[in-house]
């Protein structure tokens, strides 16, 4: 199957291509983050969404969902809290309208799917596979950071067993050459154990991190600010947590505790330099979420900033930079020592 959507890298100064596995090669590592870019049409007014390595859609569930009441957001220092509650049109409308539109503009799509039970995840995956625009799909992101109704609402991604079950069921529904990415929550004692469970259950890659559970009190009204009481914390504030999670999982891969699979980094990326932090920690691709609310062109801007930064540093291949902070491969040439550095 030759897929028109698998474009070749275009920057001739550096090879930015990213291999997601199974022949799915993206022209560059930049993506939108699920839930921070809707399903494409809105941002397409600001830039051509097919310029991105891939477009990640808002997590979609089986049925239409209204989401939570309002207020659904609160601004926090260098970040924000949201409690959308996975509002969406349901998978039928998604494959009918959103996916074909993304295909029509030439985007490579990484649909994000969600469920309140493992069978709901499987149903959503099966419907997706059966869709007429499925050829635009370069992989599927499985958002396991949502509440498991069968287990007192405990988030799937907080439990290795529940995570593995979802991943295994989704894996069964999708063609072997479509990689699936388990999207992990940072709100766990040991993220490497969840990562290991997902990979062992069939995840071809990992997306890290989803939001941190947080809360804001409205001190005028003296009650929780959000309609949903707690919400997800995102934005630059959480970047150090994302870098750490990526680093830990990549380290566990290096030590053989987790099979080696690509990591998609997400969390607090606002600039090319921020993206490079996640890449150097081990991410093969980078998503831009909350920063898009500050700057609707952020995903492409970050792509251009990252490209320029890597070219300036003398890299010729993006893949050489992935995980570079672990010591291998080493940066290609020494960094100029300025007045501030010692010795």
């Amino acid at each position, binding site marked *: 199957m030759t897929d028109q959507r698998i474009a070749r890298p275009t920057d001739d100064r550096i090879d930015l291509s990213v291999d997601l596995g199974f022949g799915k090669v993206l022209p560059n590592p930049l993506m939108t983050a699920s839930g*921070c870019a*809707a399903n494409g049409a809105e941002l397409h007014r600001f830039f051509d969404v097919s310029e991105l390595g891939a477009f990640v859609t808002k997590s979609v569930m089986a*049925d239409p969902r209204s*989401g939570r009441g309002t207020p*659904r957001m609160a601004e926090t220092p260098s970040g*924000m809290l949201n409690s959308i509650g996975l509002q969406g049109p349901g998978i039928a*409308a998604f494959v009918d309208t959103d996916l074909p539109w993304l295909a029509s503009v030439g985007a490579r799509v990484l649909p994000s799917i969600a469920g309140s039970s493992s069978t709901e995840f499987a149903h959503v995956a099966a419907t997706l596979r059966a869709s007429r625009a499925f050829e635009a799909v370069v992989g599927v992101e499985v958002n396991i950071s949502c509440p498991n109704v069968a287990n007192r609402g405990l988030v799937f991604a907080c439990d290795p067993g529940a995570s593995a079950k979802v991943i295994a069921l989704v894996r069964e529904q999708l063609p072997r050459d479509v990689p699936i990415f388990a999207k992990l929550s940072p709100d766990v004692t040991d993220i490497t154990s969840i990562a290991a469970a997902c990979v062992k259950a069939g995840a071809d890659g990992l997306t890290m991190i989803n939001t941190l559970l947080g809360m804001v009190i409205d001190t005028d009204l003296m009650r929780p600010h959000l309609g949903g009481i707690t919400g997800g914390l995102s934005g630059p504030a959480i970047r150090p947590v994302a870098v750490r999670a990526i680093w830990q999982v990549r380290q566990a891969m290096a030590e053989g505790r987790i099979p080696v699979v690509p990591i998609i980094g997400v969390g607090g990326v606002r600039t090319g330099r921020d993206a490079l932090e996640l890449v150097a920690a081990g991410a093969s691709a980078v998503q831009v979420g909350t920063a898009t*609310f500050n700057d609707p062109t952020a995903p492409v801007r970050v792509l251009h900033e990252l490209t320029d930064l890597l070219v300036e540093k003398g890299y010729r291949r993006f893949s050489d930079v992935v995980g570079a902070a672990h010591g291998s491969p080493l940066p290609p040439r020494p960094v100029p020592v300025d007045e501030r550095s010692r010795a």
Partner: protein
Amino acid sequence: MSASPVRARVAKEVAEVIATRRVGAYQHLTLVSPQIAELARPGQFVALAVGDESSATLLRRSFSIHKVSPSGTYGGTVEIVVSAVGPGTRWIVGRQPHDPVDVVGPLGKAFPLPTEPVPCVLVGGGYGSAPLFWLSSQLRERGCHVEMVLGAASEDRLFGVVEARRSCDGVTVTTDDGSAGHRGWVSDVLPELIDRTGAGVVYGCGPMGMLRSITDIAGRHGAVAQVAVEEAMACGVGVCMTCVMPVVGTDGQTRMVRSCVEGPVFRGDRVRWDAFEGNHARVPDDAVGAPRAGGH
């Protein structure tokens, strides 16, 4: 949220502040923003970034477009009227002439204009009057008789009384404390005004409580209400789903719709006012995809 490929054009530009002046309790800013000035229509809004790259304040702040001048000495300008209520608006009112401000717009749907020259009443609460003068001119160009009601807590929180007299056929002022015009609320004077003018449309912009009562009164007096709402927005461009409100669609079904792209102007009688309580809005039980008992 299903994708509709055809959408109004929108621009992101670094605008220069060319004028800023105090007007009562508000600050009136003029920004050189030629692309936005070119595209905008009354009822739409702009979203301004706050601070520089090292600002802890990530989200944009939204402001109704008060006025545009598509070609001035400096290139097209966009004017806004800002009430300083928190860190973001304080930063914005602190901008000086020549300072740059990052602006996205025009955003949202404009006030729909009647196809026939029907009489209209425009009601503005506080800075909510900002977009109405421009609307009034366009309505009068179409031959509509336009009367305006301006209401606020006190005189300093009224905006545009002089401009109203210039751009409308009649102006009524109310203040809660009686410091200007009638002592009381806009809802005290509105019924009589609709009846007297035979208004077919009541346009409103202001606090939610006021919009709700405008809707009620318009309905009872045979007019359609078109209201511009103000819901907390993280992105302003339709991608985050934070700005939703329960609104009844043409199919009679209630959905949580994005007020930044499907609003901020809604037909008043489509808004599920029953779901609002303070600054919270519930998802009505009969809304599409509403949580079911035992479900999500």
